[in-house]
């Protein structure tokens, strides 16, 4: 096998895991509607750290498309919210590359990705789905849970990268 086929094989493996996590999360009960832990982001961050930014883009976008087909939300508002969140979080991840790895660890990456995700979702919702300033009432709650869940996700990634303590 060439290096490229190994890479495609690995990316598809991570895609499969991300799709499973994303789909499972959709059916996961949440106390407040719309608040989800975003466990698929663990895999995206892991892919970025293990390979490169390009593979993370592949995994993220394939995950959004395929899992929406599985759940049955393809080309519905849910799908576009998910897609815009994923795209903006990838943009934030791209910008994170320029941060010094000496001072910034995956916790920063995870938090900024979470922030990008929530901002992307809010932009789409405010522009097309609920065109009213009232949606920003939800912003404080969402940003609080983004902070908590992105810390937990980053901790899980750090455990995955170095499982032997």
């Amino acid at each position: 096998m060439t290096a490229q086929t190994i890479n495609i094989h690995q990316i598809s493996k991570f895609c499969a895991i991300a799709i499973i996590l994303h789909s499972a999360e959709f059916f996961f009960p949440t106390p407040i509607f719309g608040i989800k832990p975003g466990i698929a982001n663990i895999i995206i961050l892991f892919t970025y750290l293990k390979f490169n930014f390009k593979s993370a883009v592949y995994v993220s976008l394939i995950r959004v498309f395929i899992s929406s087909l599985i759940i049955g939300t393809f080309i519905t508002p849910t799908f576009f919210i998910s897609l815009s969140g994923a795209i903006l979080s990838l943009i934030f991840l791209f910008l994170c590359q320029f941060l010094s790895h000496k001072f910034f660890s995956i916790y920063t990456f995870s938090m900024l990705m979470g922030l990008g995700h929530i901002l992307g979702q809010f932009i789409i919702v405010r522009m097309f789905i609920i065109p009213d300033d009232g949606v920003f009432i939800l912003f404080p709650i969402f940003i609080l849970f983004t902070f908590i869940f992105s810390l937990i996700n980053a901790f899980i990634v750090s455990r995955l990268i170095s499982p032997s303590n």
Partner: protein
Amino acid sequence: MKLFGYSMREILLLKLFKLGDFLIFFIFITIIILALNYYFHLPKGDYLEISHGNEIKHYSLFQNKILIFDEIEVEINMGKARIKKSNCANQYCIMQGWISKINHSVVCIPNLFKISIKSKMLSYDSTNY
């Protein structure tokens, strides 16, 4: 106490976090505090906007008044407003209670009825361009 093989001391003392992470923490927590502060101290509105069918009407909030539309009664009481009576089946619009903060609204979907509180300062409302 050990958490996933790390002691609490290691977690707290830069074993996992790097210096820049604390900067991001600080920025994030500042955003959260500002957002929560805004959330709990929303500005009060100036007038009440009632959309009924295709009509949109404006009423001052600083009065005591009961407005009667076809099936719905709206009560305004010095800065706050509510739907007092409605003929809809579930009565969700009445259960919403009083609203007084800017951009809050109550809708009654069966009657295509909406009341919302607006401000004269529409600086960040992009629909007013």
